[in-house]
């Protein structure tokens, strides 16, 4: 299938890209990996008048730890995340997520920020970044603004970005020594949208009590969401089986999955319980290893 015609621009700087975006209206789209956008264009469900290819903008390729944050630039691919020793060693949640996004070839081109902007309710990164308490840096001609990922993800395919803004980077707090995390996903086969996904990120204090916890749910409603009461249930406790089971039940209660070919609501709801428990168990193993 062939997309509708469109114009194309490949600016060399963010400044240039923002200028192109401004005034373009909703019909201009930023193109990074294009692994979600281009298929939609092929079905002609999307037909932007212009694609602004940001992959040739060096400053968007930032991928480093800096003053307490891991900075992930707009053009960093899932593959770069998956293959980075730093991610593998220090960010188990991001690593387990990166290695199950889409399929291994798509991961080489698709970007983390692009996936986040696409805001598919079944997107893996939304849940993971919510759990990791990440924030986004948004750029426009009028400057920069930051916000937690929770606020950035508004609704299905809808983010806090206005039409002349670009998601410049995602910032993930550098985990402390006693932090662990894990992403659990059910997919019918490699490359399928998640039937259900749960991301967990836990920091314990020196006595093993939970000092900080993030639980993000994927495919649990119109957009990725935080399992607030599950987190509340865990705060201050130790990661014992009882607490984990209770958190699983809470997460299941909070999830609002919709029925589709992946299964009915009650099945999906129970999967949030099962996956939350498994994600927290895996996280416990990591945390115990680190204490």
């Amino acid at each position, binding site marked *: 299938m062939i997309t509708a015609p469109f114009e194309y621009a490949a600016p060399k700087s963010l400044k240039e890209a923002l200028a192109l975006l401004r005034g373009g209206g909703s*019909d201009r789209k930023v193109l990074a990996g294009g692994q979600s956008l281009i298929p939609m264009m092929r079905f002609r*469900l999307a037909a932007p008048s212009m694609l602004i290819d940001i992959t040739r903008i060096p400053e968007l390729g930032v991928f480093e730890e800096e003053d307490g944050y891991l900075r992930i630039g707009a053009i960093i691919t899932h593959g770069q995340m998956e293959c980075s020793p730093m991610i593998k060693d220090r960010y188990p949640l991001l690593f387990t997520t990166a290695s199950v996004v889409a399929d291994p070839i798509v991961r080489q081109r698709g970007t983390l920020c692009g996936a986040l902007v696409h805001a598919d309710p079944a997107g893996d990164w939304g849940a993971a970044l919510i759990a990791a308490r990440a924030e986004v840096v948004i750029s426009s001609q009028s400057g920069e603004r930051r916000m937690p990922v929770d606020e950035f993800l508004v609704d*299905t395919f809808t983010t806090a970005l206005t039409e002349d803004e670009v998601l410049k980077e995602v910032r993930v707090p550098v985990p402390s020594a006693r932090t662990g995390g894990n992403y659990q996903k059910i997919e019918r086969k490699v490359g399928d949208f998640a039937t259900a996904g749960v991301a967990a990120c836990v920091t314990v204090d020196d006595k093993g009590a939970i000092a900080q916890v993030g639980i993000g749910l994927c495919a649990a409603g119109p957009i990725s969401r935080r399992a607030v009461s599950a987190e509340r249930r865990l705060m201050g406790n130790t990661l014992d089986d009882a607490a984990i089971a209770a958190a699983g039940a809470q997460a299941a209660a909070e999830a609002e999955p919709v029925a*589709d070919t992946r299964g009915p609501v009650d099945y999906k709801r129970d999967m949030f319980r099962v996956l939350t428990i498994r994600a927290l168990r895996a996280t416990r193993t990591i945390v115990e290893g680190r204490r």
Partner: protein
Amino acid sequence: MRIQMSGVEHVSVAPEQAFAFVTDPNRVGRCMPDLDELQVSDSRHFVAVVKVGVGPVRGRLKIEAEMKTDDARLGDLDLTAKGSGMGSGMVLTSHMHIEPTGGGGAELQWSAETSVSGPLASVGGRLLEGQAKKKTQAMFDAIRQALQANGAPAGS
């Protein structure tokens, strides 16, 4: 795919006013979200073109609507609509009943069933239901606001 919805909306205008509003293509038609153009053929038929825009998904739906009322059953409205666009089709059947409530207000009891065919259902089915619910809610919010605006508040 088939999407069923129903709800109850409270407005603080008299039932007659509310009924007159929702049975007036010119007024109720303008309450459709993302309305592009509205052609009213007669007092019971109108054609509307609405924008569909969810993230990258963009398109237009042409909706032909027909209203049926029955003087014997004042306060009851049947609305059927046929939509087409984005290589897809949509058929909506809905019923509305308006009841007086205490304090001169009115209650709009409505139910609607929409069936969607084509790529929108096949490709977008996973996301369709939520969107349909939002658009419907937006429509009733618009109706309520319009009524509050031009209808005298109850009691005064």
